[in-house]
Each structure stands twice: as structure tokens, then as C-alpha cells.
């Protein structure tokens, strides 16, 4: 018997207004360093091994996938179509962050199923807004096709 009660990742299970999260994490110097390294960035804002470093602005863009994975299982994935971000304050190494999301829109267009997920990350202690963003994705069907 499975203890995985997540919904299958299918169009019929994605509903507007569905809340996702929260997820919690602490920004680490290791992730900042690895992310900056993957971009081949030596920007001093990221710390370069010293303290008080800031995180690259899109380092936690992937939080949408964590939010989805907390609520859904299976599926063939999606194709990233659009993205928007508002950067209010940069994340800092050592900062505890809480991210929540909402599925704000689902629709079919030219035979493809789209969903929009808005999510925001806040300082876990102060509640101050750090980043607000939204992803629009085409959900692949059970055959792995964009329709």
C-alpha cells in the first residue's frame, strides 16, 4: 500500500485557485557557488567564497518544480513557455525562505494545455517579500505530446 497521496500530474487535476506549498529552505553558500559557477559568473555580489553573499536572482526559479512535486506525481513533464519575475529583495546566504504558489490559470490553446503558476518567496522570519514570479507551461499529455 502506497503512502504517496499526491495527485497524478494530469490536466484534469490542475485547477485554477489550487494552492501549492509552502516549501521551506535555507539559502546556502554551496548552492550560490554552484549556481554562479554553472553560469561562469565571478560577480562579487555572490560572495566568491566570502560571507554575506547574495543569491543569483533566478537561483530559486526552480521552486515551482518543488511546489508541483509536493502535490503531483507522474506525468510526462512540461515545456516552459513564459516566465516573469519581480525581484523585491535578493536572497542572502543563511536566510530562511518560505515559498508558496497558486495555479492561477489553466486553458487550452491550439490544442495545447497551458497552466500558469504564480509563486512567491518570502523571508521566513520577517515575511518580507523577496521574489514574486509566474511560470506558464505547456503540460505534456500521457503520450508525451504537446496536446
Amino acid at each position: 500500500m502506497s503512502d504517496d497521496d499526491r495527485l497524478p500530474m494530469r490536466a484534469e487535476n490542475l485547477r485554477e485557485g489550487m494552492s501549492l506549498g509552502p516549501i521551506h529552505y535555507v539559502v546556502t553558500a554551496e548552492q550560490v557557488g554552484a549556481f554562479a559557477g554553472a553560469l561562469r559568473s565571478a560577480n562579487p555580489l555572490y560572495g566568491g567564497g566570502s560571507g554575506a553573499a547574495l543569491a543569483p536572482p533566478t537561483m530559486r526559479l526552480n521552486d515551482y518544480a518543488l511546489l508541483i512535486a509536493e502535490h503531483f506525481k507522474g506525468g510526462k513533464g512540461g515545456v516552459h513557455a513564459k516566465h516573469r519575475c519581480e525581484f523585491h529583495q535578493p536572497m542572502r546566504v543563511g536566510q530562511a525562505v518560505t515559498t508558496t504558489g497558486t495555479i492561477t490559470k489553466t486553458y487550452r490553446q491550439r490544442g495545447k494545455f497551458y497552466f500558469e503558476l504564480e509563486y512567491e518567496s518570502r523571508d521566513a522570519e520577517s515575511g518580507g517579500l523577496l521574489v514574486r514570479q509566474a511560470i506558464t507551461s505547456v503540460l505534456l499529455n500521457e503520450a508525451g505530446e504537446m496536446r
Partner: protein
Amino acid sequence: MSSSADEVRSGVEFASAPYCLDADTAEAYRRANHGPRRRRPAGGIHDDNSAANKAGFVAPIAAGEQVLAVMAQLLVDRFGMGFLSGGRIEIAFVKPVLFGDTIVAHARIELERSSDTHLELAIRVENQRGENVLLGTAAVRTSTA
């Protein structure tokens, strides 16, 4: 913000260094992200030929997030805290990036759309064939007002 007054004329363009998005940089990017609890088996449009073909691509494609990260990095390098604190970005992925493609991020200042507090930019990322793979707009904060 590091731009001089001379650099913020409308139409001024700047670009990133070329970034080869090959298997190694894709793997480095994947490792730098904290992966979710797996909700499907491995083998998707980013790492499997058959899956990519079914989705309509000729080969596995790079993650759009990594392309966006290259774009955002150009704006951090150019505007620093003006982008990190009060900036925004809105983009569409208009063409897939295949592994081995070399991409360059571009930004063009658009003073006519700018305000007293924010500088507006038209942004794009192009591949080595001169094709746009990402199009959008961005804004950076120019004052604390």
C-alpha cells in the same frame, strides 16, 4: 547601478559573453538546482531523444530556466542591485536551445518606456545562428523613490 549617463541613451545595446550550453554546463546547472522529489521516471525532453521527439523537438532541449539565468546574469552584471532589488523580467521562450548551442544575451535601453524610477529594456537571447530563442522585457530600478 554602474552605467554612466552616456550609457543610458535610448537604443544603447549591450550583450553577454557567449555561453556554450553543452552537456557539461547543463549538468552543472542541474546540480546547482535542488531537484524536487521525483514525480516521474528519468527520461524527458531534456535528456531523452524519444521523449523530445514526441514533444515535437528534433533532439533533447536545454532547460529554459538556464537560458533565462544567462539573460538575468547580464542584467546583474550591468546594473547590480538596481536589478536584484526592484528589477523585473518578463520573457517568452520562442525557440528551443539544443545542447551544444552557444547563446548570447542582449539588452537594449528603451528610454521612451522608462519612468523616473525604472529603466526599461528590450531583452533577447540569440543562438549561434542568429535566431532569437528568448524575447522579452526587463526593468531595473534607477532610484530609491
